[in-house]
């Protein structure tokens, strides 16, 4: 079972935190800080597995972390999960985010936290892996987003306009446009000195 999924940046600021076990708010923040502390000490070319800190269950739980650009993706799992499998899961998660946000970067995660939560909800549910097929996840997330947009009412007008333009099916432009002879008098432009 996955106990927690944390995403934070190189300075320890949380970008996403989802706990699948109950902790108090203070404990959650402490766990984030402790995990950051453990993970940031690691060198670049060491293995991705660490023992969990005291708060999150000590030596029974493992932290599996991957570092992408400025973000650390940390999954805290117990012994029933395969460590190498979780590594692949993180990879699939990041690739899905990439597809959904078009070249995802940290700013996307900052400004669209709710969307990231929705994508994650399609992948992991209750601490267990729900779906690993990237296309399937993206299809479902898109469908739900469409539902949201259709409800949005007046506030959604600009968004609807944008998506309308995107989806517009322009008929093919005719190759030759015969406008006919138009004599246009081109005035003599004075030369500028």
């Amino acid at each position, binding site marked *: 079972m996955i106990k927690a999924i944390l995403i934070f940046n190189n300075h320890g600021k949380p970008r996403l935190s989802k706990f699948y076990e109950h902790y108090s708010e203070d404990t959650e923040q402490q766990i984030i800080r402790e995990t950051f502390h453990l993970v940031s000490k690691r060198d670049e070319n060491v*293995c991705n597995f660490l023992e969990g800190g005291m708060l999150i269950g000590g030596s029974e739980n493992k932290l599996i972390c991957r570092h992408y650009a400025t973000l650390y993706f940390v999954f805290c799992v117990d012994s029933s999960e395969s460590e190498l499998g979780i590594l692949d*899961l993180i990879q699939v998660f990041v690739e899905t985010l990439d597809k959904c946000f078009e070249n995802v970067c940290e700013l996307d995660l900052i400004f669209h936290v709710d969307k990231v939560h929705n994508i994650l909800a399609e992948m992991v549910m209750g601490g267990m892996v729900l779906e690993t097929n990237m296309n399937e996840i993206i299809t479902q997330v898109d469908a739900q987003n469409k539902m949201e947009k259709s409800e949005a009412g007046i506030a959604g007008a600009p968004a609807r306009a944008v998506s309308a333009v995107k989806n517009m099916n322009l008929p093919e432009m005719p190759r030759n446009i015969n406008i006919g002879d138009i004599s246009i008098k081109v005035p003599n432009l004075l030369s500028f000195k």
Partner: protein
Amino acid sequence: MPAPIRLRELIRTIRTARTQAEEREMIQKECAAIRSSFREEDNTYRCRNVAKLLYMHMLGYPAHFGQLECLKLIASQKFTDKRIGYLGAMLLLDERQDVHLLMTNCIKNDLNHSTQYVQGLALCTLGCMGSSEMCRDLAGEVEKLLKTSNSYLRKKAALCAVHVIRKVPELMEMFLPATKNLLSEKNHGVLHTSVVLLTEMCERSPDMLLHFRKLVPQLVRILKNLIMSGYSPEHDVSGISDPFLQVRILRLLRILGRSDDDSSEAMNDILAQVATNTETSKNVGNAILYETVLTIMDIKSESGLRVLAINILGRFLLNNDKNIRYVALTSLLKTVQTDHNAVQRHRSTIVDCLKDLDVSIKRRAMELSFALVNGNNIRGMMKELLYFLDSCDPEFKADCASGVFLAAEKYAPSKRWHIDTIMRVLTTAGSYVRDDSVPNLIQLITNSVEMHAYTVQRLYKALLDDISQQPLVQVSSWCIGEYGDLLVSGQCEEEEPIQDEVLDVLEGLLVSNLSTPVTRGYSLTAIMKLSTRFSSDANSVVSIYGSSIDVELQQRAVEYNALFKKYDHMRFYSEHCCFVQILPALQVQSTHPPCFTGSIYTSSLFYRFNLHVLYYLVSLLFQANDLLDLLGGNDVVPVIQTTLPTKPASAGGELLDLLGDLSLSTYSKNGLKIEFTFERANPNPNIAVITIHATNTTEADMTEFVFQAAVPKTFQLQLLSPSSNIVPALNQGSVTQVIRVLNPQKQQLRMRVKLTYTHKGSPIQDLAEVNNFPPQSWQ
């Protein structure tokens, strides 16, 4: 009231804050705005406000006032609202808040909603944070959804069912019929979650396990299809078809095949196939192989397959990828108990991993190395492990040192090697050694009698080099105190220290800032002991500490001083002074307290106890000393013509009786008769064992009967405890006591005897000398 700002605006604003205080201020302002907006019961902007609240919650600010708002959002008809509402419920609510029960009705309605996404949201939330009450209420709905043909909902229902089972195990039976055709699904998502559900059920209930064993052929078939099928773009991950599902199925097979021969046999082929055909160039392939290996090791597989598995692990160890190496070391650790020989083959690779830079790998390699140590490879392995101990990080040193001690104790090829190893550990990692190892080491050294000289020399040398490592210093000072005479007696292989040098070193320990109070206690005791062995006088040193600030040291110093003063003349009877021989044995026990750790409190507690025993023994010997005085000075003891009543006394005692056999009666007075019988002790012919029998011919009992004896300087005497101290009247019984006399120089045995008893209410004391033991007794 202006429209509340959007989430994006809020995030942007917060990011402009330059300090924590500024950020806090902004957030507090926004919280206030949100709170007033909630009070106004504004439906349009509620979801926006809750979204902002969730963001602030992630940053660590309190957000509990939004909990009820989440409920209101869930109850709304709009999908957007429901989405944020459920997300908020998952993040802000949990079982401990009473509010969460209010969600139950909403979730129930949403589980039956027409839109699948709403149903999905409800299932998701229930599966994440549903409490046992909620699960009990809604299990029926979940079970219904488990049978639907909509694969999107089916997979979510499966995971929700897992959560329900975890919370309320009794409901497991309810889901059984729905699982019947879960595995015949084509959709991989559903397959995956179904396997998870089956795994959970099998792990929780042995009945379920039996029931699902019949699914093994089906699982094997699915796995086969996955491997054999060609490239399928939707499930492909780096060239392998749905590795997540493969790994899950392998795990379920492991659980089903455990301790069951038939299932294990059905799996053998497919496991061999996966193990040999999977490509190992990418992480996915290795993940599958790893899971396969774990499965092979767990079920009752045939030996060829097991060897294949361990070889795969061996190959993993050589892989460049650190993750793979880590994973291999972990699995080898699990299997080393059962397949010890197979793992031994990879020993050299494992030992190489000790030199890896990665901390996690080093730790695993160290644990595995200790598990692999056996009688054959102990020397080689210990060399590597000691080298590792030298160079590893401090966090490992304690564990490594303990491991080395354990391994050395079990498999040491010779005592000398054992002591050398221990010394090496003490000198390299002395300060990390655990507290209880000091008394264990002292015990070990005591027991290896022939190594005493060698040990004390080496420890002395180590002490000269470095006095900062406390366990080393403690063991060394104890040994020097104990065997200091061996140190200066000329048995040294190298430069021999003189007595003063040794005492100087011990004094240096006492004054050094590096010594802990426990160490000071050890060295003070050592100095005291040496004062009896060496001819120089350590009294001055000890008495200085009579006014030490440390209570323990002060007490020891004062008590030792008292001992010295009172029994100073006994110092010259040092060979007879068995009390200093008793002290080490007692001290060792003092550092082996059953329930405390080696703290100064306990050592002083036991020390005080020992000292009382000491006083008692010393007082006994003191009385013996009186007798010795009567016998005269140090050397040749003049024979004092006996003033003993050798004539028959009134009660009909007997004359000195030089009997042909080895018994003689030597004392008889006032009705008390003591008979000496005699034999030689096996195997040591120098020891004579004398048994006295005391009988009483008067009409009254003789109570508090104490028999004491003393022998001249060249002998050693040991009095065992008497059978009782009441001599019954009229020869109705006797008191017996055994005396052992060591007579290495084969001189004439003589003995001074003192008797005390109470007869008819008055105490009686008598002295006698026995000097006509039969020649056989001492030749």
